[in-house]
């Protein structure tokens, strides 16, 4: 648990912001797909989980939109304000096995773990194709990292018309993040894809069992410990709520 001062904020799409904070231990340890659980004084009772978007030197960043009370407050934080930062939490993406090519598929805020995924995929010697979708051009995240970049918008205002999943090529390693409904579609196409899911979280540390992810083989895993990254075919997508009030849309 770190007391992390906010060090900056910038806008990367309509309503989408990156918040930076000083969190040395986390910055040096975090892997793509892992998250931090953030609290702040005057904030809601429970912490709020966010993927680590970027890690450099002693700093980490998260990317978010104001989708509710907590994220609204976070966007009102100023440089110097303090976040209580728990992490890095969860199991991230795996880039082993000598694969040559990785496709990163994200919808909307699903871009959150992708900068680190690109970093880790490259470090594992892969070529990275970056596929990012949103409803419309203004909602596409302006920051990107890939040897090839593919944009997709629902309204066709930029890149391929349609979803990021539809726009993406196949590859040895597919990484996907976005609304659970988009991930279900990814699972249809790439059963072996590694997907990062969203659930409500009570603790983020594995003790409350609140973050249950329904599994195809029956029973539940904890998104905060065994996840948030899953093999797409392992998740029982029909039983995973896709209607979280804060669910971001592609």
């Amino acid at each position, binding site marked *: 648990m770190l007391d992390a001062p906010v060090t900056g904020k910038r806008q990367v799409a309509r309503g989408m912001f990156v918040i930076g904070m000083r969190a040395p231990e986390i910055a040096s340890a975090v892997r793509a797909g892992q998250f931090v659980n953030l609290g702040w004084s005057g904030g809601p009772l429970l912490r709020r989980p966010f993927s680590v978007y970027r890690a450099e030197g002693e700093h980490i960043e998260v990317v978010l939109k104001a989708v509710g009370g907590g994220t609204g407050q976070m966007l009102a934080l100023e440089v110097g304000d303090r976040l209580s930062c728990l992490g890095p939490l969860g199991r991230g993406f795996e880039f082993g096995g000598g694969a040559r090519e990785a496709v990163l598929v994200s919808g909307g805020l699903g871009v959150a773990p992708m900068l680190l995924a690109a970093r880790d995929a490259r470090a594992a010697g892969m070529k990275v194709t970056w596929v990012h979708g949103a409803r419309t051009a203004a909602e596409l995240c302006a920051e990107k990292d890939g040897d090839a970049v593919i944009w997709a918008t629902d309204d066709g205002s930029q890149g391929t018309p349609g979803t990021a999943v539809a726009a993406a090529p196949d590859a040895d390693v597919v990484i996907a993040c976005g609304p659970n409904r988009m991930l279900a579609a990814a699972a249809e196409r790439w059963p072996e894809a590694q997907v990062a899911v969203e659930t409500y979280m009570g603790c983020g540390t594995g003790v*409350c069992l609140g973050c249950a992810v329904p599994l195809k083989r029956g029973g539940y895993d904890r998104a905060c410990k065994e996840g948030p990254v899953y093999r797409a075919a392992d998740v029982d997508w029909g039983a995973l709520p896709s209607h979280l009030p804060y669910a971001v849309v592609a």
Partner: protein
Amino acid sequence: MTADMSVAIGSMKLRGPVLAASGTFGYGTEVPLLERRALGAMVSKGIFLRPREGTAPPRIAETPSGMLNAIGLQGPGADALVRDYAPQWAEWDFPVLVNINGESASEYAEVTSRLDGVPGVAGFEINISCPNVEQGGMFFGNDPRAAAAVTEAVRKRTKLPVWVKLTPMVSDIGVIARAVESAGADALCAINTFVGMSIDLNAYRPRLSFRTGGLSGPAIRPLAVHLAHQAARSVRIPVIGIGGIARAEDALEFLVAGCTAVQVGTATFINPKAIAEVHDGIASFLEARAFKSLADLPRYLPRD
């Protein structure tokens, strides 16, 4: 001067009055050692005889100063607990009690027999107060005869300490408290969560898939202090206060109101160091007022 923080719950001597509440500290293995240093005892996640899947998500929802949960007692069952966790507990420097559950008095008894004598299992907390199961749970907890029957059934199977965890969903907690005291409980734990509901205005249905959930957190603290106080007034055995404790002052309210010890639950989710901070804060409070030991803390406990 360091105040003596030890407490006795029946025959069990604890190094401090701050315990980890069931279901909020997992099996203790998830939490780094450092966070366990001040623990008086730990109560493990509620367990049935056999493995249980728990309820479908969503399982939690936030409310003002509180949270609803409907985990549904997901757990690996008694055998896995004996195999995977008890051996670790046996190494620790504080006792671990198991929160036991059943759909019938005889199932509670069976779980007890399975765990009794297993190294690492220091005692039992009978959960007759879980609001998130279709059978058993709370339904034993609001009928004094059923509550006593479960307590007796467990009592017969073990010589280890038996605590009974009460539900707040009763019109008179004193009646249940006396019933389980007579049935042989060594201590009472007051209280488990309150039943609550939160509605999703997009879906026009409850947020939780189980529809209702148990409310915990600071929101319930004044209710819990009252109920723990009522329980303490009604019996001679120790009462362990639970509900919304996040800071030392919160715990002290329960202690002044007549509790012998407290359990910290939801606060651990937000602050993994909550238990240590509560423990240290109580010690500072005692020291600032020159009390030599926790036993010297003035209590407000008119007897019924």
